[in-house]
């Protein structure tokens, strides 16, 4: 039913069986396919390390799979590394690497799949596994200025509550600068900038004055070790963390988390809850996009349009609060469904607000399209071409502005999106204006989806109990407002969380940010930043 058209020929099942056959033919006994499970449609278990890069290359380049992310798990006797690939139209493929616990070195796949860059750096920083062939390990989440090497906080032996050992400020630390232009220097921005209204990110703009040659973001100032402190807690406690590590897309993240838990328990949310989840998820997307549009207007200093968009956003926040009781949609998702139900009158009121927001957004879009000084500042600014977007694996509206069609709602539907009719808008220019157009178009689609969800509501239960099924692990996913969000949850025998890992769209897109921020004029920097609309806290966790 979905209007989404996969660029992989054939339907999902044949695509998957094709792939299985091709892998068997190409890799033989080195790769053993295993049946679906843990939220994956296919698990490819690798017998030896050496075929990892070639298998990843085969999936990513030859078969057109999307790279989802990488999940490392420490078990008592072995490491498990999951490389998640998405076969559009079919589902998630798990490339599984099981290694003895003594293993310290794994071949890097960054030459084949550049998008794995930050994932490998994170695993190196957190677990101490060295990735051979990765040129830039170290100094990632644990900043070298403050933390010594070898702390490896995600290891089981590390206690989250005790202060980390051997920590001190290294004043001699110098960033690695790569621009060799006579007279170049690195202009530091942040982590406290814009009067603190910007999130805590530090940028080094390598420049020769007017022209910035390269901008390098330095993140993880907001790292709160969400995944570490989740370990050993109950599901309902970790749900609070999943909801609150990135509040501007709280509902999408809690949804992905709940879906992972539901997969472990082998339950499915009731139909009414599924439709309501879509309704609230799209409400969150609409609100987020209104806010992102306001930020873009603000970056170009077009005051009236900023005010207009900001009012739309605040009205949607208020509508969310009236509808659900919380402005940021906290406390709604629970494993098995939703925590509260909504009657027809509430839905009707919500529709009035949403329709008003859509009307206002349309007025804004029409006006902006005729504001030449505004367009001048956005067009050809922060360009990411389709090829780069593909190898950097840009997701969400940013990816879709650079001709990356992938949207989990269509490519790997969840919560019943397959029953909805909607478009996935995309653009090919990859500049700031294309990203703005995608935001407007998606907002329109979200309103359409909210209408469909309300029409589809049937009376019924909104929650089913989640019991049993553990120990177990599963992947849950959702298309958050900023793009694909993947949550990996693993429960131990007592039903407590053993490993929790969130792969967020901002993590994927911050990695690709440097591609847009090359060779630009200094005054365009806030605009590039705003059109990317990234969240540092969503990336940092």
């Amino acid at each position: 039913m979905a209007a989404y058209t996969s660029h992989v020929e054939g339907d999902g099942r044949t695509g998957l069986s094709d792939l299985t056959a091709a892998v068997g033919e190409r890799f033989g006994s080195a790769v053993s396919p295993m049946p679906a499970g843990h939220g994956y449609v296919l698990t490819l278990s690798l017998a030896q390390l050496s075929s990892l890069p070639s298998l990843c290359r085969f999936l990513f380049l030859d078969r057109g799979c999307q790279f989802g992310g990488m999940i490392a798990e420490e078990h008592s006797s072995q490491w498990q590394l999951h490389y998640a690939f998405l076969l559009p139209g079919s589902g998630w493929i798990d490339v599984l690497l099981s290694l003895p616990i003594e293993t310290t070195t794994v071949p890097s796949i960054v030459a084949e799949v550049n998008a794995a860059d930050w994932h490998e750096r994170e695993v190196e920083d957190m677990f101490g596994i060295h990735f051979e062939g990765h040129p830039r390990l170290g100094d990632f989440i644990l900043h070298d200025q403050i933390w010594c090497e070898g702390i490896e906080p995600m290891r089981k032996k590390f206690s989250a509550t005790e202060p980390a050992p051997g920590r001190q400020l290294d004043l001699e630390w110098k960033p690695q600068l790569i621009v060799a232009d006579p007279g170049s220097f690195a202009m530091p921005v942040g982590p406290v900038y814009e009067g603190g209204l910007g999130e805590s990110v530090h940028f080094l703009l390598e420049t020769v004055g007017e022209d910035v040659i390269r901008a390098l973001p330095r993140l993880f100032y907001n790292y709160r070790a969400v995944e570490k402190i989740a370990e050993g807690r109950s599901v309902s406690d970790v749900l609070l963390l999943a909801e609150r590590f990135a509040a501007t897309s709280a509902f999408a993240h809690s949804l992905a988390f709940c879906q992972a838990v539901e997969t472990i328990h082998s339950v499915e949310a009731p139909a009414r809850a599924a439709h309501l989840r879509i309704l609230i998820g799209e409400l969150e997307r609409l609100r987020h996009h209104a806010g992102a549009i306001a930020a873009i207007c603000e970056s170009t200093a077009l005051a009236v349009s900023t005010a207009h968009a900001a009012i739309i956003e605040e009205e949607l926040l208020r509508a969310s609060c009236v509808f659900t009781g919380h402005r940021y949609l906290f406390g709604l998702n629970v494993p098995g469904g939703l925590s509260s139900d909504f009657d027809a009158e509430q839905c009707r009121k919500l529709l009035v607000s949403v329709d008003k927001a859509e009307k206002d957004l349309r007025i804004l879009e029409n006006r902006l399209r005729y504001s030449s000084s505004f367009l001048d500042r956005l067009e050809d600014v922060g360009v990411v071409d389709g090829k780069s977007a593909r190898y950097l694996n840009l997701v969400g509206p940013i990816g879709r502005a650079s001709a990356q069609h992938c949207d989990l709602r269509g490519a790997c539907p969840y919560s019943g999106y397959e029953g909805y009719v909607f478009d996935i808008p995309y653009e090919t220019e990859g500049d700031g204006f294309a990203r703005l157009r995608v935001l407007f178009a998606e907002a329109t689609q979200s309103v359409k989806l909210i209408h469909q969800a309300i029409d589809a509501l049937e009376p019924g239960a909104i929650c089913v109990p989640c019991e049993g099924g553990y120990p177990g692990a599963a992947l849950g996913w959702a298309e958050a407002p900023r793009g694909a969000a993947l949550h990996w949850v693993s429960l131990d025998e007592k039903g407590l969380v053993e490993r929790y890992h969130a792969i967020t769209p901002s993590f994927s897109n911050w990695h690709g940010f440097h591609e847009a921020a090359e060779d630009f004029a200094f005054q365009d920097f806030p605009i590039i930043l705003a059109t990317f609309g990234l969240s540092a806290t969503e990336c940092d966790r």
Partner: protein
Amino acid sequence: MASVTGASLVLFFLACAGGILLSALSGRKRAPLVIAIVGTLSSLLMVLAAATVLVTGQSYEASLWTLDGFGRLTLRLDALSSIFLLAAGIVYFSVSIFVRNFINDQLDEAYPTHRYGVLYFALMASVVLILVASDAPLFLICWECMSILCFLLLNYDLRRQSDKAAGYIMLAMSEAGFLAVVVAFLVLGRTATDLSFSALSAAAAGLSPQALWSVFLLGFFGFGVKAGLVPVNFWLPRSYTAASPIFIPVFAGVTLNLGFYGILRLNADLIHTGYGTGVLALVVGSITALVGILYATTDNDMKTMLAHSSIENAGIIVAGLGAFLIYRASGHPVAAAIALSAALYHMLNHSIYKTLLFQGTAYVEAETGTRDMDQLGGLSRLLPGLSIIFLVGCLAISAVPPFNGFVSEWMTLQALLRSAVLSSTSVRIVFALCGASLALTAALAVTCFVKVYAMSFLGFRRGTWEPRLNARAGTRFSLGFLAAVCLLLGTLPTYVLPVLNRTVEPLAGASVTTSLVQPFFTANAENGQLPAPFLQDFHNLGAQSGKGLLPGRGLVVLLRGLEANPVVFAMSPSYSFVALALLLLLAWFVVTRLTRRRAVARRALWAGGIPRLLPQMTYTATGFSNPVRVVFQAIFQPNITEDTRQTVAVHFRTAIHRQREETHVVDRLFLQPVGAATRWIAGFLAGMHHGRLNAYVTYVLAFFLLILFLYRGT
């Protein structure tokens, strides 16, 4: 008083001779002291000789011997020569003190100091002889001596090949200019009774306009080479950069001025041309100023930057001279007098602050081992004394009151604004354009020297150099003396202008004193030129108040508009200085009173919350001036010679290399085409030298037939 002048000149030449002898006889150790003592003494004699002429207004004349075929060699120190002699004396005074502390650092065993001393005094004598020569042969002989001595001093201690090339380019250009000047004098001398300047001047009155034009162009080219005018100044930045720091102030403060002296003497004093020549000088001057300051702003080598800045200042001076020529030719002697006094004032100022800045640069280089502004930074904490003196130099050259650059640039711009009196619209348009260009130049000059001071003295130390910190008392005295002169010339223009008037009046035909430096404002007969109600207004404003306090004329430099429109452009650096000082004092007093009870909390530098702001994270000189480079891209036309991006693991950028190359606009538009044309002609001629006898016989025959054809009638 003429006897004082004569005596000082004689003593000066004796001192120079003594200096040459003593330098030659003394060893490496003693020679710096000889240069310092004898140099200081002889420069004081120069100042004395110049001062007596300027104060009394009496020229000094002396005849030397007669040379066969050249006539009598005569010396004449008139007011025009004196003003240049005064500038040279002040510069030499400072340089001689400065040299003592630096010379042994700069010269090693292979280039002994005493030989340097010989050349130093020889150059000093030849410069003074050029200024006092009153006939063409002596003038030309001394000019040639000066050129060769400059070359020898420039190439004295050169080790690098490129620096040698700079010396040869300078020598070649000097010789080309010299030949042009010789031809100019020959054209003048064709109808003259002898080759003395007075005879040449008399002969020039009878020359046709075409001949005058050719004399003007030859002289303007010949002296323009020395004065650093576009497009024949490409030797200047090269040789200034190559010159050793002990010699470069002489270059910038003395020999550059000889170019202006030549232009004034030959093109303004000996001949009187129409206003076309003035327009040429004005346009060339304005373009030179703009080109000079653009390259000064973007260059990061302090010395090269100052060289380009000298070009800029030369442009401003020549623009003033151009305005003077136009006003004189079109019968506005008062305007002409203002323009000329502006030009001379600027010449004097430039000699002083440029000497100061070059010596400051030498000091910086000696302390840090580098002149690259990208590498420097933070010097104000290392060298607080030098920092203040250098700041004075920067403010003066950026035309910021209360220093001397402001007075002369203000007067130059005012002189250009007076073009309203001219009748020709097209010339008025040229004036307007040149005025706008000079205003842009002045603005860029501020940018340029903000950059120099901020990037070298403020902020962090960006390079890897280590400070050496060896204090030099004499150096500080020399620099402090120049800074004091900058302040005096900037605050007391009303005392300087009457002195300049001695020079200006005979050339312009009008006195600048009455029109430019007013007596104290009062409605009495002294100010017959101004309407009485207007004077009364000024009187009521208190313009009379300084009369009892200070001797001399009123402290207001003033320019008047037309009779129909008596707009007054007035300023008084002296009053402003006093007011500025009082305001600062008052502000300091008020601030200390108000904050007496407040605790002052000193906090670390705010840098966005990062642990430490590294020197690599602060603006470099290149970064500071890059906006200028971007805006004037059409002139700079930078060439990106290298733009490589290295990656590992397919996508990881490990290095971005970028290298720019700029060809100076004069090199690009003048030197390279001329060079290419010369090579082409040489190649063509070489093609004729193929050594075949038959062809030579054919050439001879053809030439013979041509001659027969040409002289067929006779």
